[in-house]
């Protein structure tokens, strides 16, 4: 997942340097799109990322529709609705990972598996800047409604203590996983950036990077001493069912 983040950020910055003035006024479009998301919820600030963290994203298909309305010759407004499932497993080696459940605070040191899956309906709204040659840059916000959330941690090896760098209890290798499903929140909001290229008439290929602002857990459910925010890269294939040319003066 970290590689995807780096790739998207680099691609976006390099593309920004190549922008030129467009020649044609874009049409109003309405279409469908499919895609896949790679990523999930990660600790924020990033300093809380475990010292060893190996994500294993699961690729699942997202389905949706989109509408694009030109504002000027170079700018358009885009809106989408997308149904998607984001699934990510990870293993990590953590040190003094703080867990809090009510008054109970424990610090875990060791290795653990983490499993997360979120089924989301997402509503992105963004501005699109049209570049020559069918290239576009987009930036906006998204609002997501979580239909189903799963977040589980299974300690594998290690120990817990009532304070940092302290041993109180050894983790049994057959220990039950800790389930935080019921604590996951129902909505999210965040920023969206992307690049899109027309590969055939009516068919666009795009990559996106989205970053949530909101902890995936309900407010008041403070299990960790940091936030878990959604951070994802997406690949999207969109087909315009309807294209209505806009008259230009």
């Amino acid at each position, binding site marked *: 997942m970290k590689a995807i983040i780096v790739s998207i950020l680099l691609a976006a910055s390099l593309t920004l340097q190549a922008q030129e003035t467009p020649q044609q006024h874009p049409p109003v479009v309405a279409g469908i799109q499919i895609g896949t998301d790679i990523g999930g919820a990660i600790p924020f600030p990033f300093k809380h990322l475990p010292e060893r*963290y190996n994500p294993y994203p699961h690729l699942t298909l997202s389905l949706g529709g989109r509408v694009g309305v030109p504002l000027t010759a170079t700018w358009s407004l885009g809106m989408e609705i997308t149904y998607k499932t984001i699934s990510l497993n990870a293993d990590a080696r953590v040190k003094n990972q703080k867990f809090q459940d009510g008054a109970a605070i424990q610090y875990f040191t060791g290795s653990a598996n983490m499993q997360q899956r979120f089924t989301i309906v997402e509503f992105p709204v963004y501005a699109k800047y049209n570049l020559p040659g069918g290239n576009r840059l987009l930036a906006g916000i998204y609002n997501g409604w979580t239909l189903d959330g799963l977040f589980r941690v299974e300690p594998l*090896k290690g120990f817990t203590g009532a304070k940092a760098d302290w041993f109180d209890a050894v983790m049994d290798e*057959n220990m039950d996983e800790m389930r935080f499903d019921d604590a996951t929140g129902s909505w999210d909001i965040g920023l969206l950036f992307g690049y899109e290229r027309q590969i055939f008439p009516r068919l666009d290929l795009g990559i996106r990077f989205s970053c949530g602002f909101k902890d995936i857990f309900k407010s008041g459910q403070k299990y960790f001493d940091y936030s878990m925010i959604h951070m994802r890269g997406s690949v999207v294939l969109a087909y315009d069912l309807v294209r209505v040319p806009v008259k230009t003066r």
Partner: protein
Amino acid sequence: MKQLYMYISLVLLLAGACVKVNNLADEAAVERFTVIAVQPADVRVGEVVIEPGKIRVRLSPRDDLFPFTFRTETKVSHTTVDLVNIPAEFRFETGSGSERFYAVAESGIPHAYDVTLEAIDTGADITTFSIQGEAGSITIDPWAGAVHIPATPATFPYKLTATLALSNGSAVQDTLITFENINQVKEFAVITDDGAYTRTWKISLESPAQLPNADFELWINEGTTTVNIDPMPGKVWGTGNNSFVQGTLPVNRNGGRAAEMTTGIQKIPFLNHELVTAGTLYTGNFVLSLSFENPRSMTNFGVSHKRRIAAVAFDAYYVAGVQLQQSVKNGSKYVVTDIEGRDTGEAWVEVLNWAGSGELKYHGDPVDGVTVLGRGNIIFDGTEASAGAWSNFEIPVAYTNTILAPTHLVIVFTSSKDGDKFIGAKGSKLTVDNVTLRY
């Protein structure tokens, strides 16, 4: 510039994610343990012996040695990432104490190390001391230069014939020692081969040993979630208390303290299990393991005790809770359900012979190397005549093996007899005080 830093940070994070955690090493070891800054400063510290799970610091005994403190410099193996619970300064009040810390492996598995002191032979020491009929029960204290003979003679003078072995390997056969009264201390001078040093050993009679803190006066962390019976000296008594469960607490009695064990329903954080947890108090120690399939695996029963006891007596009262319940696994969670029956408390005693080496790990089930020499128990069902009021109880030990010598003693009190199966009644209470060993 900030963007550049972000890219560099992300690339570094990516690079750090190359090792799968299941490939991380489980091994951890201390390779060097150097003792520095000792107090008293002129103590002669000898070799430090490092074995798996044990570090023995050898030093010369002397009268003003304790409290003995030192700091350390350590070197660990390349698969060891951390040392936890290691004090900034080790402090020993007696020569028989120990300090435990953990070496943490790459994978996170902790490896316990017990740091103990080992007396260096001064060349003028008594190394063995035996009298007929008292094999294994005489205590030689190399730190104090003392020999303690457990005996309560009915008449004096009390004469015994002893055989001693000395530092240089020589034996003193059939030495007649006469005690004029119980408080008399006999002195026995041992001289080094070169004649340069004479150590005067003190030989005394003492009443048969009782367990430390057997009146349950000493507790730690009272008023906090980590309240527990004082594990020192000698770490004799243990409970299942930790930050999740506090089933054994001190209560006031006759101007002092007693230990009250209570069965309760505990919600285990993070896992949302509801567990019927019995209060416990036993000789041994507790190592919390967050596994709920075999709760007994968390209790290490037994402390070193080399004299055969006849019975264990104690003051106690018991009140059974109203509704017997059991935690059963329903899917991934333990939930509490009502069951038929009445809760019972229990006290049981076992005298063990441990033929193995290292630390005894006995959970009450058969273990290689452990022979149960004798056993006894009492069930409190809440209907006994003394129910709900203090009474004195005695558990006689019925021996099935009179050949092997005792090495360990197990005494267990629990507010719910089947607490290890998560069966009990909320509110069952067993309160105990003044445990006495009878010989």
